[in-house]
C-alpha cells in the first residue's frame, strides 16, 4: 500500500514533464505558405494557417471564417514558428500540418535546405504534400475561401486529389518524396503548381463566398526543377503526359482528331508505363506505355462495330500519345533536367556506365534519342456502336 502511495505521489510530481495539452488551448496549424520576405533582405515570409474550431462547430454559429492566417517574417522556418506566438493566441501545433505552399519566386531562387525542418522536427508528419504557388505568393493563395470548401487547405488538397484521379494533371507529392527527388542522383523534382483563376474582387474575403463565380484555387501546371531551382513549367496536357510517363495517371481522357474539327474522346481506364535507358551504345531513352481505353464520345460518324475502324482509331490514339510523350521529354531535354529519372534507371541497370558518366549526365540526357512505344487497347465503345444519325 505504501508503495502504491509513493508511486501515485511520484506520478503527481511528474505531471509537469508530460505534454498534457487541452484541445481548446491548441492552435492547429494546417497549412504553411513560404514567400520571400518583404521587410527583410533575405529571409522568408511565412504564413501559418490556423483552424478556428468554433466556426466549424456543428451547433454553434458560423458567422466568421473557419481559418485565420498569421504571417511572420524570419530567416528560418522554426524561428518563424516560434515568433508566431507573438500573434497566435494559442499554443501552435504542427502535428496536423497538411500542406506546404512555396511561392514561385522562392522556388526559382532555389529551395536549398528549406524542407529540412519538416523532416527534422518530431511533430510534423512527412506525408503532407508540397505545392508551388504559380506566379503568385503563397500568402495570397492561402487567403482564398471558396464556397464549396471554405477551408483553403482542404480545398487545395481535395482539388488536386480529385484532379489526380480524374485527369492526371496534378499529383500529390508528399514532402518525403520531394526530398528524395532532390537528393537522389539521376532524378529531378516535379511539383504541382496552383494558382488563383482570377483576382479577388474585394478585400473582404467573405465576399468571395457570396459570389456565384468566386475566385477559385486551380491546379495549374507542373513545375520543372533543376537540382533545387525551378526552371520551367509543363502546362495542361504536357503535365498530364509527364505523369503518364511516370505511370501516375489513374484515368484520363484523350482526344483524337477524326476530321474537320471533330474528335473522338477516349477515356483511359488504366495506364502503366515503364521507362528504360538502353545503351546502344549511347543512351537511348525508352518509354513503354500501356493504356486501356474505351470510347466515350465521338463527334464524327464512325462505325465502331467495324474492327478495321477500331484498329484505325487505336493507331491514331497511339500515334497521338507517342507525339505528346516525345514533346514532353524534349522539353525536359531542352532544360537539361532529367525529371523522369532516366538516369536513376540507368544507374540501377548499368552502374558502371553511370559511374563514368554521371558528371556529364545532363548533357548526355539532352542529346539522347527518344524511343516511345505506346500500346493502346480499346476495350469497348460504350453502350452504342454507331452514333445516332441526324436526319
Amino acid at each position, binding site marked *: 500500500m505504501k508503495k502504491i502511495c509513493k508511486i501515485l505521489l511520484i*506520478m503527481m510530481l*511528474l505531471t509537469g514533464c508530460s505534454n498534457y495539452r487541452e484541445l481548446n488551448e491548441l492552435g492547429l496549424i494546417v497549412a504553411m505558405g513560404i514567400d520571400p520576405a518583404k521587410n527583410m533582405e533575405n529571409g522568408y515570409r511565412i504564413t501559418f494557417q490556423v483552424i478556428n474550431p468554433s466556426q*466549424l462547430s456543428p451547433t454553434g454559429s458560423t458567422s466568421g471564417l473557419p481559418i485565420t492566417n498569421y504571417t511572420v517574417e524570419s530567416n528560418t522556418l522554426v524561428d518563424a514558428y516560434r515568433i508566431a506566438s507573438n500573434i497566435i493566441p494559442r499554443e501552435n501545433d504542427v502535428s*496536423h500540418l497538411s500542406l506546404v505552399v512555396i511561392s514561385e519566386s522562392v522556388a526559382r531562387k532555389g529551395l536549398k535546405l528549406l524542407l529540412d525542418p519538416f523532416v527534422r522536427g518530431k511533430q510534423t*508528419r512527412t506525408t503532407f504534400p508540397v505545392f508551388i504557388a504559380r506566379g503568385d505568393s503563397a500568402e495570397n493563395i492561402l487567403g482564398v475561401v471558396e464556397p464549396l470548401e471554405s477551408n483553403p487547405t482542404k480545398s487545395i488538397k481535395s482539388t488536386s486529389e480529385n484532379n489526380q484521379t480524374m485527369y492526371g494533371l496534378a499529383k500529390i507529392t508528399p514532402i518525403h518524396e520531394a526530398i528524395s527527388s532532390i537528393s537522389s542522383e539521376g532524378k529531378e523534382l516535379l511539383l504541382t503548381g496552383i494558382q488563383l483563376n482570377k483576382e479577388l474582387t474585394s478585400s473582404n474575403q467573405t465576399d468571395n463566398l457570396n459570389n456565384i463565380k468566386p475566385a477559385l484555387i486551380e491546379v495549374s501546371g507542373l513545375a520543372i526543377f533543376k537540382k533545387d531551382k525551378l526552371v520551367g513549367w509543363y502546362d495542361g496536357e504536357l503535365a498530364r503526359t509527364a505523369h503518364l510517363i511516370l505511370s501516375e495517371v489513374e484515368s484520363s481522357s484523350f482526344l483524337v482528331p477524326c476530321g474537320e474539327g471533330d474528335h473522338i474522346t477516349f477515356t483511359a481506364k488504366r495506364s502503366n508505363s515503364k521507362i528504360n535507358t538502353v545503351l546502344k551504345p549511347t543512351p537511348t531513352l525508352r518509354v513503354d506505355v500501356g493504356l486501356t481505353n474505351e470510347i466515350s464520345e465521338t463527334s464524327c460518324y464512325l462505325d465502331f462495330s467495324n474492327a478495321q475502324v477500331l484498329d484505325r482509331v487505336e493507331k491514331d490514339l497511339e500515334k497521338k500519345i507517342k507525339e505528346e510523350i516525345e514533346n514532353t521529354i524534349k522539353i525536359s531535354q531542352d532544360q537539361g533536367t532529367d525529371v523522369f529519372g532516366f538516369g536513376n534507371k540507368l544507374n540501377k541497370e548499368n552502374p558502371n556506365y553511370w559511374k563514368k558518366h554521371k558528371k556529364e549526365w545532363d548533357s548526355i540526357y539532352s542529346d539522347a534519342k527518344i524511343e516511345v512505344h505506346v500500346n493502346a487497347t480499346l476495350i469497348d465503345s460504350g453502350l452504342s456502336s454507331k452514333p445516332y444519325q441526324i436526319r
Partner: protein
Amino acid sequence: MNTEKSNIFRSIQDSVDDNIKRLENELGNSADLSIRKLKFTGDKNVAIIHFDGIVDEESINNNVVNRIIKLLNECNTSVTTEHLADKIFQIISITSVKYVSEWFQLIDSLLSGDTIILIDGNQKAITIATRKFQSRSINEPTSQTVIKGPKDSFTENMGTNISLIRSRIQNSKLRLKQTKVGDITKTDVGIMYIEGIADKDMVKEVISRVKRIKIDNVLDSNYIEGAIKDHRNTIFPLLQNSERPDVVAGNLLEGKIAIFIQGTPFVLTLPVYFVQFFHSPEDYYENNVFSSFLRLVRIGTFLVNMYASAIYLALITHHHGLIPTTLMVTLMAQRERVPFPAIIELLLMELAFEVLREAGVRMPRAIGPAVSIVGALILGQAAVEAGFVSAAIVIIVATSAISSFTLPYTSVVNVARGLRFILIFCSAFIGFYGILLFTLCILLHLCSLRSFGVPYFAPFSPLRIGAQKDSLIRFPIHSLFMRQSKVEQSNEMQTNTSRGQK
C-alpha cells in the same frame, strides 16, 4: 466435580422436564419452539420437540405424532423406557431417524429442522429428519440469462440445488461432501465433484480449506470465496460463481469442483481460468462459428469497457498527431466552450454513469422510468447543450458503459470498472505510455495469479496449444468431447498445496 458437571452438560439427562427446561433456557424461550408432551405411564412423558417453520408439519403429524399416540394407547404400562424408545424408533415412518446422546447434537439437529423425541428415563434422544426450509420455486436465471438453452436456476435451498445437478449428471461417481461453516450461522456447505475426473489432491485441498475456515457467518457464496481463494490481494475473481445448473454441471464434467452454500443461489466452481469469464453457456448451445464470434465480441467489449475512456483521453491530451485532421477539428469544435479540463470532464461523466447504474440497481421498480429520463435527458443532452461536457465524451462513456453489459459474469465487469479509473489517471499523466505501463502491470499480475494452484491466465500463459480449442474461440462439439480442458495435474498443485496465500 468440574468434570462431573461438564459431563452433565454434555449429555442428555434422564428427565424430560429437566431437558425441556434446559432447552428453553438455552434457546431463550424462543416463541417458535414447539413442544408436545405425551404421558405414557404415571409421571413419565414423551416429548416431541421441533421448531415451527423449518419443518414439514404435515409429515410430523402423520408420521410421528399420530403413530406415537396410537402406540401409547396400545401399550401396556409395564413397558420399559428403552423398549419404548426402540418401539418408537421402529414405528416412525420417515426414512432418516437417529439416536443422539450428546446435548450439542440435539441442539444442532433441532436448529437444522429435525424433530426430537425425548423419553423419560432414556438418555438418548431420537432425531427425525423432518427439515423443510421455506424457499422459492425454481425460476429463470436473472443475472445470467440465455436465449437458447436450459432456463432453470438455482434457488436459496441447497437441497434443491443439488437435486438440479443430480438430475443432470446421473452418475454413481458424482460425490457430495457436506460440512458446516460459520460459528454462528452454521451454514451447510456442500462440496461436489465427479470422482475419476476431478483431481484427487485438489478435492482434498478444497475440503481442507473449507474446513479450516474460521468465520462467524456465511450469508452468500462470497464469504466462502473470500476465505478460500489463493490470493487475498487481487480484484480478479479467482472462483467462478454461477446461478445456472447447466454451467455448474458442465464445469463438474470438466473435472472442476463445485461448492454449494445453503442460502444463496450462487454456486462456486473452481479452479477457474480468466478466459472462462468470457464464456457464456450459450456458446455451447449455438453453432460454433457464431458463438466463437460472440466470444471475440465479448472480449472486445471488455477491452472497450476498460480502455475506451483512457485511450480517448490520451489522444486528445497527449497525442494530437494521431487523430485524423477532420476528426481533430470536430473534436476541437466540440471542446471549444467546455470549461473543464478533459480529465475532469471525463471523470464527471464516468462517475455520473456509475451513479446512474447504482441507482438503477437500488431504486424501487416503480420509479425506474424517472431515473432513466433523468439519466438520458439531463446527462446526455442537457449537459452537452449547456456546454458542461463535450458530446464526444458522452459518446465514449456511453460506449464503454454499454460494453460492460455483454459479459455473463458481473465479477469480471467490476474488475474492468475499477481498472478503468486507474487507466484514466495513467493516461492523463503520461498518455499512451502510461496506459501501456499499467497494462503491463495488469498482465504481470494476471500471470502471477493461481486459482487453487492452477495458472489463472492459462491457456495463454503458460501457453497450451491444445486448450485453445475452447478459449478465445470454440471448436465444434465433436472436437471438444474429449476432456481436453481437464484440470492441471498434481505437479502444479504441489507448488501450492498449503494455502499459498500471498
